[in-house]
């Protein structure tokens, strides 16, 4: 609760939270707010020559190249992007926590082996790996989320490992151990809670990255399957129209930017609050 209060005090973080909330509410309420069905290719949605319509009239933000309402698609796209962001990130953080804690706690040969494996994964060119996997599997919402998770867990693992290493050396852990506490107890009751702040911070920052990565994958044509809208694949379908129908690129782009930005701001503010050593360093 202290965290909440602190967060609300900083204007920048406040701004971030507001945007995040707006996006989340819009996504949840999409079926109620959206004026049209996002997949409905309307005959009137295109001009006489078959070109997308600019913002105006019944179409708040214009239509896309198949005559579908952009505003409705963006609303539903929020769902897609957020689900992927949450799922992918959640999985990434979980894996990262697990690997990092085990490697940091166990140390010795097994620990080193785990970290070497992490190094190995880190050596993979992330985007290339994502492209290869997504292009060559059958992309669906879940596959895309998995691919992103596979690419992102490494960073979390590294940080968690370093922190765990530091924690393990601390006196109170040694005290617990000498008192006879089992490994499980130590891990769950003592180490994990200390890592929660890190997990939360990275989780929040990670959503920004996953939203961007999903958009990039969709932009390259290997993201969410049509006709399901995602912010990235709306731009993908319309990229060559950026002169003829700039609203099709500008609006989704702006939304991606705002959302990622907000998560970044919130995550950064959280880091300031939860980790005193980082305070003031920005």
């Amino acid at each position, binding site marked *: 609760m202290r965290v909440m209060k602190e967060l609300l005090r900083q204007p920048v973080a406040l701004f971030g939270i507001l945007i995040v909330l707006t996006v989340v509410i819009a996504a949840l309420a999409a079926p109620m707010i959206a004026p049209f069905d996002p997949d409905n290719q309307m005959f009137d949605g295109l001009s006489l020559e078959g070109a997308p319509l600019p913002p105006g009239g019944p179409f708040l933000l214009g239509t896309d190249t198949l005559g579908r309402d952009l505003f409705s698609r963006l609303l539903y796209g929020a769902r897609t992007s957020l689900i992927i962001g949450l799922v992918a990130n959640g999985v990434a953080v979980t894996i990262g926590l697990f690997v990092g804690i085990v490697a940091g706690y166990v140390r010795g040969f097994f620990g080193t082996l785990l970290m070497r494996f992490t190094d190995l994964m880190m050596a993979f060119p992330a*985007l290339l790996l994502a492209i290869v996997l997504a292009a060559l599997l059958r992309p669906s919402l879940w596959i895309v989320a998995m691919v992103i998770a596979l690419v992102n867990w490494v960073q979390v693992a590294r940080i968690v490992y370093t922190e765990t290493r530091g924690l393990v050396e601390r006196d109170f852990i040694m005290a617990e151990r000498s008192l006879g506490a089992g490994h499980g107890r130590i891990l769950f009751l003592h180490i994990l809670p200390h890592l929660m702040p890190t997990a939360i911070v990275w989780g929040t920052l990670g959503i920004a990255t996953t939203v961007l990565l999903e958009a*990039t994958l969709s932009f390259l044509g290997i993201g969410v399957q049509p006709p399901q809208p995602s912010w990235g694949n709306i731009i993908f379908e319309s990229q060559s129209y*950026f002169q003829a129908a700039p609203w099709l690129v500008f609006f989704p782009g702006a939304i991606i930017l705002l959302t990622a930005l907000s998560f970044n701001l919130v995550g950064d503010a959280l880091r300031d609050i939860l980790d005193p050593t980082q305070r003031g360093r*920005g």
Partner: protein
Amino acid sequence: MLFLRRLVQMALILLGVAAITFVLLYALPADPARMIAGRSATAQTVANIRRELGLDQSLPVQFWSYLSNLLQGNLGRSYAQKTEVATLIMARLPATLTLMFSGIVVEVMLGLTLGTIAAVRRGGFVDRLVMMASFVGVSAPQFVVALLLLYVFAATLGWFPMSGYGTFSHVVLPAATLGVLGAGWYARMVRSAMIDVLNQDYVRTARAKGLSSRRITFRHALPNAVLPVIAMIGIDIGQFMGGVVVVEAVYGWPGIGQLAWQAIQQVDIPIIMGVTLTSALAIILGNLVADLIAPVIDPRIRTR
């Protein structure tokens, strides 16, 4: 001795990358022999091509022959082009390296400038503005920014060529795209490193003694930021390899990103392997640089 150990570790990591990529590509449903044979080929032709490429052998055998070729410095031949993969990569590597280098230069220059300003005017409006801008940069989708810059500066204003490679003006927009977006990280790093110094007692003493702000900033605070920046560059190099795919695509930059993209479409396995290994090497080297510098910055970090 330590160096040797590092070298061995690097080699093992590369081996791991090669193995995992190879297995992934092997497990694909897509059939490279089919892709090469094209649509009018008879079953016999497809079978012949498969045999010629060694694709009818088991996974371990294929991997072993790839590995033995690799150790002799032979990256194999492209399935579709029959050209040696090494030739293709070497032809395009300079372009990607140029882009990477230019991008980093822009990032660092911009980052140093912004970070210094923010640190000096800490807490003020300018500080907040700079930090906000750096966040925006980091949060923006690369391809949208690239399209935007292309449209405004090249297509409409005509200040720069729209695509191509070879002169300074060709590199400006792509480097700017990469640089502007990545400068944020550097700005924040520089800012925090400088603030560290500016908070120190000896700086306060120096200021009390009358030393000019500028002198303090440039002679004491700024050098403190250099090492972290270098460490960051190391990690950045690794990120770049994957990140240039989008920029290269939008600007028609003849780099490795385009090569990889086309190869993936055609299931041209030797090229995909070659590019992955090259990128992995770059990442490992970059991390190595960062790791070597780390203890110099912060002696508390024990070398493992």
